[in-house]
């Protein structure tokens, strides 16, 4: 029973939508609807109609002046219609008269203004009749094309809109020295080709390198051999062994540095890390997270680590939490497990 109702409602919607026609300009039906809605003798009707006519004349003058600055001859040719031979009051009454004939309903108001001005300007009725028929045919053809290609128009419009996110042409205030920025549409991070090209060989070489500072604690569980805390600083090099797809990114880094435990164990630490993360998640924070697995040696003892890497400022500052396990330590005083918190500044 419910599904029948849904089908019925859907059918009604489909019919209602199909009944709507693509109206491109204000035309006779809009013009007459104002009087029908507000009442014929109402002063407001005149005000609304006058507003619309003011808009038409302003729009025409505005684009005429704009066109004239660029191509005076073309502007003269395009905007040569007589539109201002009548005063507003006269024009409104002439348009009321024009649209009282129902067969003129499809003629746009802007064309009707031209027609009434042609009449006052002394153009012959035959020429006016021909103009009306031309306009009627023109409007019908535009409407038919709009009906059939409205989806394409919308798609083209969207394409146009997306292809010029910040593209306002020079005459809207950009000076001749303005350089157009090439911005990728929906990039995972905005890239500017100019900047990439400008970087020198050593900048490219050191890209991805970093320096870090760390601090950590070791009392992971009661079995740990020594209750000590530690700190370290290190130097991080991104190796060429990294790959990146649209969805996944993996980076292999080498770290070397100095580690210092409160139990007076000082020494070198070297590690190799593989960091893996997603790139194109719809949840932005996930794109900033990488999981971190590493092997190395700390004060001469093998160590394994796993961790969690979060970019606070993308590609500039990382916060890293790592859990270290040195397994079977042959140095009794070295803590077997510890957690290290690091901050890494990238070049």
């Amino acid at each position, binding site marked *: 029973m419910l599904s029948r109702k849904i089908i019925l409602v859907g059918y009604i919607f489909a019919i209602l939508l199909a009944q709507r026609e693509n109206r*491109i*300009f*204000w035309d006779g039906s809009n013009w007459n609807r*104002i009087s029908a809605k507000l009442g014929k003798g109402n002063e*407001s009707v005149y*005000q*609304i*109609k006058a*507003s*619309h*006519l*003011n*808009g*038409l*004349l*302003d*729009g*025409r*003058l*505005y*684009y*005429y*002046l*704009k*066109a004239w600055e*660029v*191509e005076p001859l*073309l502007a003269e*040719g*395009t*905007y040569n219609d007589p539109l201002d031979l009548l005063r507003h009051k006269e024009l409104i009454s002439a348009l009321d008269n024009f649209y009282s004939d129902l067969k003129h309903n499809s003629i*746009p*108001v*802007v*064309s009707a203004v031209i027609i009434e001005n042609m009449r006052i300007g002394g153009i012959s009725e035959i020429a006016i009749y021909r103009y009306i028929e031309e306009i009627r045919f023109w409007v019908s053809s*535009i409407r038919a094309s709009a009906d059939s290609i409205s989806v394409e128009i919308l798609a083209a419009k969207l394409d146009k*809109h997306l292809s010029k996110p*910040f593209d*306002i*042409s020079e*005459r*809207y*205030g*950009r000076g001749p020295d303005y350089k157009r920025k090439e911005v990728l549409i929906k990039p995972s991070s905005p890239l500017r080709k100019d900047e990439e090209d400008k970087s020198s060989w050593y900048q490219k070489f050191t890209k991805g390198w970093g320096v870090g500072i760390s601090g950590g604690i070791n009392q992971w569980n009661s079995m740990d051999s020594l209750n000590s805390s530690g700190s370290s600083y290190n130097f991080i090099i991104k190796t060429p062994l990294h790959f990146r797809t649209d969805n996944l990114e993996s980076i292999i880094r080498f770290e070397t540095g100095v580690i210092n435990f409160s139990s007076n164990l000082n020494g070198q630490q070297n590690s190799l890390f593989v960091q893996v993360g997603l790139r194109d998640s719809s949840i932005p924070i996930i794109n900033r997270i990488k999981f971190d697995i590493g092997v190395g040696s700390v004060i001469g003892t093998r160590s394994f680590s796993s961790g969690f890497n979060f970019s606070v400022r993308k590609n500039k500052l990382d916060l890293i939490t790592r859990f270290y396990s040195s397994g079977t330590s042959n140095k009794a005083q070295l803590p077997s497990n510890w957690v290290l918190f690091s901050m890494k500044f990238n070049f």
Partner: protein
Amino acid sequence: MKRLLIIIIILIIYTPAQQMDRLFWNGGDWRRIEKTANYDPELTYMMKVGYINGVLDARLFYYLKAWTMEQAFADSLYAETVDYLSPRELVKVLDNFYADPINGYIPLPSAIIICNMFGERIPMDNIDKYIRHSKEWINRMILENNQ
């Protein structure tokens, strides 16, 4: 008597000087609509939408006409977006825009473009440049018109 004569002469000289040659409707006219409509919100809205539709219709009509004559010219002249916002949204954004008296003498057709730029989230630098450009343009046009 002599004083009165001087005052009358000053008034006669001063009154036309105060009148500004306006080419287009601007912020003053936009704000005045409310008063003309006797502060009736529905009528105010209808008048404003009527004006906006007029500008957009004239633009589209002459765009199509120019397009039949010279496609590249038409496409370059009418490149800006004016239909990103719906008329209802546009009326609201224009109200906000003209609430700032400094924008008062920007022509409404330019303000429509500016409001759509706001809607499109175009960087503020570019919008400011366009506003400045519009002010300079309308000043130049008025001066040329006076000459």
